[in-house]
């Protein structure tokens, strides 16, 4: 864990005095005194302007199309790519944070071997010093969907017959595949078509939550939700997820409850489950869910989460066949071998000394493999281990040779999306360091003289595309018509999960929505992004139900030891809304070690408990709550105004116009655009893509855990979460600056740094601000952020030289200094760019898309001018569900909301 807060001793003070004196001299020199033009400017280059290129970045092995915004050769932002099926023009958190990895000062920059710093040639020499014996060579990768890499692995198999290859992801589809096989004999994955689903019953599933297909699923779900008749989402889950928050009806459930629920649903759908007793709420849930499923036959489905046992997947396959559910089936891309079993066998072979050379390519088994495999010991036992990764990991630190991988944006790549669509990704920037692409490393295994030419290798894979087709595929980052065709599923037999007897507490392991399996743990944006449910940053607590906490005599923030299977981890506990009684939920991805200043020591490694069953908790007597950006408390009476819940078709009451002595120029029909935003809380899934998109676009600094603990959060956009108990509903509410027409922050500023412009924007003039913070105190929405220290100049990257981070910054946005108030201004740089283009070309102002709007997977954010009555945002403002936050204060916010709806029970 790293910190930007200085602890002062005498030497530190002397250092600062000296630095201050030096800075006061150096500070007189203007910073932008030099101009560096090109030597040979590329044709059509626009120095200083932002140019957009289509490319892709991987997540969990799948490719995801992105639009890279590049200025002067530096990618400064990743946005969605409309033509790519896994992006659909939007991004998710993992796509947004991928950019920071490119500039991460912790990146591996050189080949390191037993003699120390080395080069690629000596690494190749070491690999081939003893020609690898075919059956004593092993390769471990993550999920591989890249046609180029798959072909190269096949070539390696031909070159080294008997060589062991294992593809392994800690978060995998093993259970889903095994369940499908159990039910139908085919190893296939279900791909739900939410756009055609009236009723969805999610059993321990989080389709709207983080994952490789989040954007596509969330978009389809939102599309269906906007169309009539109102759909209904049932969720039974052990702990609250994004999907659970968006449910029309949700019930917390232990794993035994989920199994019983499957039995009951099977019975109600016409099969034969064991008829055990269900708790009344679960019984009611099952009855209603089954009724709705049967009524909506052909437009209803049951989803089971990837972590649920295979038998539950088998049940879902049977039920969905019976319901004629809108589900496509597809064979997994890159092979359907069980990943967990593959890793276990590999580990056994390593321990048995059957492997001489182990190559680990962009995978981190030492951290994430089940603890009983003792992968660190397995590597120690192996004569030579070669680990290739972009950032230091536990595995690379344990290996003999460390090979630095390039960032995906530095190389030519190809991947497939979860639906099979192939994408060809062009580099946006030259390699920063002496790194190579993953495909180059594979080439090196076959041939010590292999070059680092990822372009040639990808071009070879797609040799069937002629020059024109290749150019088109690169320019659009999508190979046309390359998606897999959905397979039909043979009739499934009914299989049901066993109901495990209830003992003590059970453990639920969930991927972190920000760090996933740990692969984003070194990413400072990801660490500082609040968890959607608990709003925790820089760490994560074990989540428990309040009753369990009381029974154990624990309070929020108490540090406990979680014991399972002879191992234990130490974490603070937290009462979490919607947690099932008897379930302890821990997020994976934390507790990294030897992986750099950002990741090290944050939280505890939940993978250590991965395969353990029941769990015991012992208090340590210590207390240290995990940092959270939001206190959870009960709102007295105001909730209906802040986060109203409507039934489908219901309208918000019309607000009474408040009398005001202030002049109020009409926004409608004004000559200048009048910017406004509408956020639809009914489809906001709380994924945080907007939060980090805003951070990347607007040069929002990372401040580190210590500053976060002081409540100095710098995110310009936050996502609030509400539970409305009377309505049994919950939801998310993103809160950027409201751009109040009657802004309370403006009259209190002594230097007029907070002023309005003629387009309805509440401006913050950074160069005028003297930092009295009066505006922040006077803002009822608490959206103003104060730069207490010179956060942009401070580093959370430890001792690493963090100059590379500055290359990510958006040149069109001021980098704010110390003592300055900052906030959202609707991406004013994008508005200005559009207006200047309109001025110069004598055209109307074109469409302006804010960074948060561009990122949103469900298109919950609408932005535009309300001066134009035909604009989409004007139409949204006229929606019956429209309301303003704290409207009765008379602030006349320009950012407004559409109310959340719950399609509850129709009591007929």
């Amino acid at each position, binding site marked *: 864990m790293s910190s930007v807060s200085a602890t002062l001793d005498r030497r530190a003070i002397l250092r600062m005095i000296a630095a201050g004196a030096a800075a006061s001299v150096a500070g007189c020199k203007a910073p932008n005194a030099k101009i560096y*033009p090109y030597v040979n400017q590329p044709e059509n280059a626009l120095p200083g302007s932002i140019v957009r290129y289509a490319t892709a970045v991987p997540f969990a092995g799948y490719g995801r199309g992105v639009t890279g915004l590049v200025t002067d050769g530096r990618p400064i932002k990743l946005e969605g790519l409309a033509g790519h099926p896994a992006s659909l023009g939007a991004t998710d958190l993992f796509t947004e944070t991928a950019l920071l990895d490119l500039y991460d000062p912790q990146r591996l920059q050189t080949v390191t071997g037993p003699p120390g710093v080395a080069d690629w040639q000596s690494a190749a020499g070491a690999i081939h010093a003893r020609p690898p014996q075919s059956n004593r060579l092993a390769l471990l990768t993550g999920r591989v969907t890249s046609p180029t890499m798959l072909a190269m692995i096949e070539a390696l198999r031909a070159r080294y017959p008997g060589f062991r290859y294992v593809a392994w992801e800690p978060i995998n589809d093993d259970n889903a595949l095994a369940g499908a096989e159990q039910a139908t004999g085919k190893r296939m994955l279900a791909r739900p078509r939410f756009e055609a689903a009236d009723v969805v019953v999610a059993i321990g599933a989080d389709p709207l939550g983080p994952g490789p297909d989040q954007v596509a699923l969330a978009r389809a779900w939102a599309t269906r939700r906007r169309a009539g008749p109102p759909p209904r989402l049932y969720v039974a889950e052990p702990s609250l997820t994004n999907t659970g928050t968006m449910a029309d009806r949700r019930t917390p459930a232990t794993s035994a409850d989920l199994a019983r629920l499957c039995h009951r649903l099977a019975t109600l759908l016409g099969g034969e489950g064991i008829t055990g007793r269900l708790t009344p709420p679960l019984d009611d849930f099952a009855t209603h869910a089954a009724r709705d499923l049967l009524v909506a036959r052909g437009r209803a489905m049951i989803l089971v989460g990837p972590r649920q046992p295979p038998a539950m997947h088998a049940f879902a396959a049977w039920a969905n066949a019976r319901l004629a559910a809108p589900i496509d089936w597809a064979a997994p891309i890159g092979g359907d071998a069980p990943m967990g079993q593959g890793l276990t066998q590999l580990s056994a072979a390593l321990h048995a000394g059957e492997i001489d050379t182990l190559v680990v390519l962009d995978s981190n088994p030492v951290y994430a493999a089940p603890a009983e495999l003792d992968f660190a010991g397995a590597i120690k036992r192996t004569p030579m281990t070669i680990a290739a990764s972009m950032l230091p990991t536990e595995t690379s630190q344990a290996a003999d040779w460390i090979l630095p991988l390039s960032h995906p944006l530095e190389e030519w790549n190809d991947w497939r999306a979860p639906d099979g669509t192939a994408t060809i990704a062009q580099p946006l920037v030259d390699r920063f360091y002496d790194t190579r692409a993953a495909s180059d490393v594979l080439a090196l295994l076959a041939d010590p003289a292999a070059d680092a030419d990822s372009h040639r290798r990808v071009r070879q894979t797609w040799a069937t595309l002629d020059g024109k087709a290749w150019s088109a595929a690169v320019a659009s980052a999508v190979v046309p018509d390359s998606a897999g065709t959905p397979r039909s599923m043979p009739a499934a037999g009914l299989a049901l999960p066993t109901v495990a007897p209830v003992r003590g507490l059970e453990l639920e392991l969930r991927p972190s929505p920000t760090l996933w399996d740990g692969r984003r743990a070194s990413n400072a944006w990801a660490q500082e992004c609040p968890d959607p449910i608990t709003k925790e940053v820089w760490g994560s607590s074990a989540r428990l139900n309040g009753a369990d906490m009381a029974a154990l005599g624990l309070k929020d923030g108490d540090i406990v030891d979680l014991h399972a299977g002879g191992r234990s981890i130490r974490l603070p506990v937290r009462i979490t809304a919607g947690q099932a009684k008897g379930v302890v939920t821990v997020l994976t991805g934390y507790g990294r070690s030897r992986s750099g200043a950002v990741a090290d020591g944050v939280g505890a490694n939940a993978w250590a408990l991965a395969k353990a069953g029941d769990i015991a908790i012992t208090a340590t007597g210590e207390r240290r709550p995990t940092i959270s950006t939001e206190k959870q408390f009960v709102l007295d009476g105001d909730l209906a105004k802040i986060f109203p819940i409507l039934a489908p078709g219901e309208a918000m009451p019309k607000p009474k116009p408040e009398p005001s002595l202030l002049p109020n120029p009409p926004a409608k029909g004004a000559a200048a655009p009048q910017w406004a935003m509408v956020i639809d809380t009914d489809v906001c899934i709380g994924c945080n893509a907007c939060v980090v998109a805003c951070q990347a676009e607007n040069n929002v600094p990372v401040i580190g855990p210590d500053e976060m603990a002081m409540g100095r959060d710098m995110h310009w956009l936050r996502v609030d979460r509400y539970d409305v108990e009377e309505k049994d509903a919950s939801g998310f509410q993103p809160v950027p600056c409201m751009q109040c027409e009657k802004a309370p922050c403006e009259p209190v500023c002594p230097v007029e740094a907070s002023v309005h412009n003629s*387009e309805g924007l509440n401006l913050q*003039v950074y160069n005028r601000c003297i930092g009295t913070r009066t505006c922040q105190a006077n803002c009822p929405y608490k959206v103003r952020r104060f730069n207490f220290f010179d956060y942009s100049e401070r580093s959370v990257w430890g001792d690493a030289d963090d100059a590379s981070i500055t290359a990510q910054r958006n040149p069109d946005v001021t980098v704010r200094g110390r003592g300055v108030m900052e906030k959202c201004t609707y991406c*004013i740089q994008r508005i200005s760019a559009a207006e200047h283009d309109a001025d110069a070309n004598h055209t109307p102002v074109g469409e302006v898309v804010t960074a948060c709007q561009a990122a949103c997977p469900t298109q919950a954010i609408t932005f535009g001018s309300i001066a134009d009555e035909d604009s989409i945002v004007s139409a949204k403002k006229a929606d019956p569900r429209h309301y303003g936050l704290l409207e009765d204060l008379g602030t006349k916010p320009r950012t407004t909301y559409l109310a959340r709806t719950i399609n509850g029970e129709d009591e007929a």
Partner: protein
Amino acid sequence: MSQLFSPASNTLARATLAGLILSPVLIFLIGATVARSGFVTGQGRFVDQVVPFSHKHHAGELGIDCRYCHTGVETQADAVVPPTHTCMTCHSQLYTDADMLAPVRESLVSGKPLVWNRVNRLPDYVYFDHHAHVNNGVPCAACHGDVKRMPLMRQAAPLSMGWCVACHKDPEDRIVSPAREFEGAPYVDRTASDRAFARQTMAAIAHHGRHLTDCSTCHR
């Protein structure tokens, strides 16, 4: 006992009283004058360059169009300082061994850019857009002065906020017809078409509700 106060004391007392009143005014006046002078704003300042490029020779005497080198000026915010290759379009043929041009040839061979010292400098928090000005009748000379008569580039305007805002408040007299935008001294002898284009531009600004004195026009 001698006199405590000499006859000069009265004068001294009067002068002191007057000075007490006048000196703050004087300090203010001097300060305001210095702040507006070239000493602080840099107006009139010549900057040494690694190659003593003469706009007078190239743009004035030879008549090379501004846009031949500053290619971005009509299409984007940044006017663009030309790449070495632009220099070499002519200088691969002309003055091929001039000592003065040695850094240019070196840049071409080494691939390292020529490093120019900025003349017209705006603070980091000011965002100026060339194409929004140039395409609306604001001539180069409005900010850069009569470049065609500058042997070495000189900062022609104070580039202070007051100076920018003065024009943003009332740009009409600063706007010329597109045909005269790249002239050295377009404000000398304003033509009827200049005035017509200026009126037309002012009407467009009003029609689109553009409020040129909004803080957000230049600051973000």
